[in-house]
C-alpha cells in the first residue's frame, strides 16, 4: 500500500492559498496507479501487455489522434508558455510537483509531438524541449497523466482555452493502445460492457437491492415508494451512476429522486441493461468504448419505450450525456420532443418546483447548514436549463427551495472556477490515496472558510465521484465523513409525502 504522507495544512480565513506554493521537483514522481491486467485491457479492445516496438506504435497513435482532433492539434501547436495556467490545478496546489502544472503536464506529451511531428522539434529538439519516446517518457506519462482529473479548470484560465483534459485523454489512449492500461478504469469498463454497470451488479442483484430499498423506505416514511426496474412503457428512463444503488451518501440521493417521481406522479423506471450513467471511456480517451457504452442507453430507451431520459447525479456522466450522447447515440427523435434529451434530474426537479408540483418543507432541513460543491464536469463541460450558467443556478435554487440555510463558498472557488474534488477523471482508487487527499486541499481550504464563518455542516454535491471522494478525504481535513451528501437527499428530506399525491 501507499507509503505514509502528510495531509496538506490548511490556513485560517482564506479561500485560496496565495501566493501559490514554490514548486518541489519530483514531489509526486512516485505516484502510480495499479497497472491493468491483460484481461482488463483485452476486455475493452486493447493489447493485454506492452507490445513490441511500442515506442514506434505510440508515436504513430499520437499522429492518428492529432489528425483526428482539431482540439489536440491546436492545443499542441499554440501554447505560448505564458504560465497563466501554472497555479490553477488543484493537484499542483496540493502536491507542489511542477509536472502537475497544466502546461508542464501538456509538455510531457508536447515534447513528443514536437520531436516527431514538427519541423523545429525534428531539427532543433533541444531548443524547443523536444525528446525521443522512450521508457522514461512512458513512465512519466503513466505517473502524471494519472494525476490529472480532467477537470478543465486550466482551460478556463488559458487565454486560448487549451484544455489539458484533452491531452490527458489522448495520452491515456496512446498508453492503452500500446498495452499499458490503468487497472481501475479498464477493469470497470470491461464490467460495463458485460454486465451493464461499473459495479458488475447483475439484474437479479439489482432487482433485490431495489426491492430492499422499497421496504426500507416504506418502513421509514410509511409511504410505498416504488423503485421500478425494466418497466416497459414508463414515461421516464432514469440513468444514474450505479453507486447510487449502494454507496453512502449516494443512496439517499436515489431515494430523493424516487420521492420526487412519486410526488409528481410521473412513471419511471431503471434499466438493468443500462444500469450505469458513468462512462469511464471518456477518462481513457477511447472513442470506441465511449460510443459503445452510450449505445446501451439508446437501446434500453427504445426497448422500454420511454418518452424521456433523465440522468441522475453524476458529473462526468452528465458531460457525456449532455454533450456527447446526441453525437454518439442520437438522434433521440423517438423521445417526446417537449423535453430536452437527455434531462438532468436537477432540471427535472427544478421544473417541478417552478410548477408547484412538489410540497417542500424547508424546516425539515433546518439542522443543515449547507454549501454546494460545483462538480467540474457539470460546471465546465455541460449546462442545465436554457441559459449559459444554468448549471450553477438550478442546483442552488433547488437547494434553497428545500432548505433555509445556504452559504456559497468564495467566488474564486465556485461556478466555473470550482476546484475539483480531487478524485475525478478515473483517479478514484485507493492506490492513488495520497494524490486524492492532496488534490482535495484547495476545495477543503475554501470549505474551511465557510465552516469557520457560517458553521456549515453539510457539503452538497451532484456527482457520484465527488461524493465518494469527499466521504474518503473529509476526515483527513478534520471534517466528519457524513458532511457530504446528495442534493436529492436534501430534497427528499423536505418533500412532504402524502400531501400532493
Amino acid at each position, binding site marked *: 500500500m501507499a507509503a505514509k504522507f502528510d495531509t496538506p495544512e490548511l490556513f485560517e480565513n482564506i479561500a485560496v492559498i496565495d501566493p501559490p506554493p514554490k514548486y518541489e521537483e519530483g514531489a509526486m514522481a512516485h505516484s502510480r496507479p495499479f497497472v491493468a491486467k491483460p484481461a482488463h485491457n483485452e476486455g475493452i479492445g486493447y493489447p493485454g501487455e506492452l507490445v513490441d516496438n511500442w515506442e514506434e506504435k505510440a508515436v504513430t497513435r499520437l499522429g492518428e489522434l492529432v489528425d483526428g482532433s482539431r482540439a489536440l*492539434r*491546436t492545443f499542441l501547436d*499554440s501554447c*505560448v508558455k505564458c504560465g*497563466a495556467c501554472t497555479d490553477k490545478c488543484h493537484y499542483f496546489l496540493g502536491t507542489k510537483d511542477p509536472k502537475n502544472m497544466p502546461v508542464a503536464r501538456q509538455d510531457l506529451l508536447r515534447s513528443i509531438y514536437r520531436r516527431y511531428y514538427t519541423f523545429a522539434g525534428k531539427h532543433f529538439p533541444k531548443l524547443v524541449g523536444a525528446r525521443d519516446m522512450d521508457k522514461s517518457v512512458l513512465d512519466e506519462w503513466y505517473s502524471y497523466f494519472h494525476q490529472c482529473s480532467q477537470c478543465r479548470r486550466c482551460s*478556463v*484560465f488559458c487565454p486560448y*482555452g487549451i484544455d489539458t483534459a484533452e491531452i490527458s485523454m489522448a495520452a491515456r489512449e496512446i498508453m492503452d493502445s500500446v498495452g499499458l492500461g490503468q487497472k481501475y478504469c479498464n477493469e470497470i469498463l470491461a464490467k460495463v460492457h458485460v454486465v451493464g454497470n461499473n459495479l458488475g451488479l447483475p439484474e437479479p442483484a439489482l432487482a433485490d437491492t431495489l426491492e430492499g430499498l422499497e421496504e426500507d423506505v416504506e418502513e421509514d416514511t410509511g409511504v410505498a415508494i416504488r423503485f421500478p426496474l425494466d418497466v416497459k412503457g414508463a414515461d421516464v428512463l432514469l440513468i444514474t451512476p450505479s453507486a447510487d444503488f449502494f454507496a453512502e451518501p449516494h443512496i439517499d440521493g436515489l431515494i430523493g429522486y424516487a420521492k420526487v417521481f412519486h410526488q409528481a406522479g410521473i412513471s419511471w423506471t431503471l434499466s438493468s441493461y443500462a444500469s450505469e450513467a458513468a462512462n469511464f471511456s471518456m477518462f481513457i480517451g477511447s*472513442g470506441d468504448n465511449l460510443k459503445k457504452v452510450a449505445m446501451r442507453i439508446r437501446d434500453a430507451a427504445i426497448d422500454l419505450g420511454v418518452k424521456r431520459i433523465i440522468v441522475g447525479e453524476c458529473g462526468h456522466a452528465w458531460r457525456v450525456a449532455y454533450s456527447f450522447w446526441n453525437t454518439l447515440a442520437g438522434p433521440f427523435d423517438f423521445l417526446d420532443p417537449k423535453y430536452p434529451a437527455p434531462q438532468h434530474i436537477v432540471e427535472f426537479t427544478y421544473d417541478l418546483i417552478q410548477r408547484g408540483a412538489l410540497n417542500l418543507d424547508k424546516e425539515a432541513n433546518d439542522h443543515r447548514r449547507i454549501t454546494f460543491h460545483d462538480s467540474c464536469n457539470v460546471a465546465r463541460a455541460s449546462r442545465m436549463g436554457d441559459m*449559459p450558467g444554468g448549471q450553477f443556478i438550478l442546483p442552488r435554487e433547488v437547494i434553497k427551495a428545500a432548505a433555509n440555510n445556504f452559504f456559497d463558498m468564495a467566488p474564486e472557488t465556485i461556478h466555473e472556477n470550482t476546484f475539483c474534488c480531487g478524485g475525478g477523471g478515473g483517479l478514484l482508487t485507493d492506490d492513488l490515496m495520497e494524490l486524492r487527499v492532496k488534490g482535495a486541499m484547495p476545495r477543503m481550504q475554501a470549505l474551511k472558510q465557510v465552516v469557520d464563518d457560517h458553521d456549515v455542516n453539510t457539503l452538497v454535491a451532484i456527482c457520484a465521484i465527488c461524493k465518494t471522494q469527499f466521504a474518503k478525504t473529509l476526515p483527513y481535513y478534520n471534517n466528519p465523513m457524513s458532511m457530504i451528501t446528495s442534493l436529492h437527499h436534501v430534497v427528499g428530506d423536505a418533500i412532504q409525502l402524502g400531501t400532493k399525491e
Partner: protein
Amino acid sequence: MMLSVIYAILFYAATLLLIVGVGRKIAIYARTPAPLKIPTTPAPITKAGVVWRMTKEVTVFQSLFKSNKWTWLFGWVFHVALALVLLRHLRYFQEPVWTVVALIQPFGKYAAFAMLAGLAGLWARRFLVDRVRYITNLSDHLMLALLVAIGISGLGIKFVSHTDIVSLKAFVQGLMYFDLQPLPSDGFLLVHLTLVLILMVVFPISKLLHVPGLFFMPTRNQVDNPREVRHTAGWTAE
C-alpha cells in the same frame, strides 16, 4: 545594388515561406475534425454569442485577465503596441496611405516603447516567477529576444541613424510590383530587416501559431447546443 538584390530575394523567399507555412497550417486546422462538442462552459448558446466571446478573447484577452493580472498587463500592452506599430508600418506598403494609418503615425513612437516595456515584463516573468521559469524553453527566450531586437533596431532607425524613408518605401513598393529599387544600406535598417526576415520564417514553425490556432480552438469557438443540434465530425460521423 547587390545588397538590394539579396534582400529582395530574401524577402520573396521569406514571404513565400510565411504565406505557404501559415496557409498550410490554417488549412490543416480547418480540415482536422472536431468530433465532439467540447466548449468550455458556460459557453454561448448562439453563433453570435461565440463571435462575441472570441472578440473579447482577441481584443482584451478576457481569460488571461481572469488568470493573472501581471501577465495580462504585459501581454496586452505588448500586443496592442505591436498592432499599432504594424499598422504604422503599412505606410511603406500603401500608396496612397489609408487615413487611419496616417492618423496613428504620431502614436507609433510611443507604441514602440510600450511594446518593449511589455516584452521586458513578459521576459522578466520568465526569470523571476519560479513556475514560469520551469516551463520556459530556450526557444521562448529567443522569441522574446528576437522581438526585443526588432523593436530596438526599429527605434535605432528612428532615433539614432535615420534612414531614407522615401527610398525605403520605393524599395518596398518595388518588391510589391516586381520593379526592383535600391535599398538604403543603413546599419540599423539592415539589422531591422534581417530580424524581420527571421521572424517571418519562424512564424509558421513556432508558437506564433497561436495567432491562427486561437481561432480554431473548439473549447472557445463551439456553440453550446449539443442537445438541440446533433453534432458529428470525423470519427463520430462515420
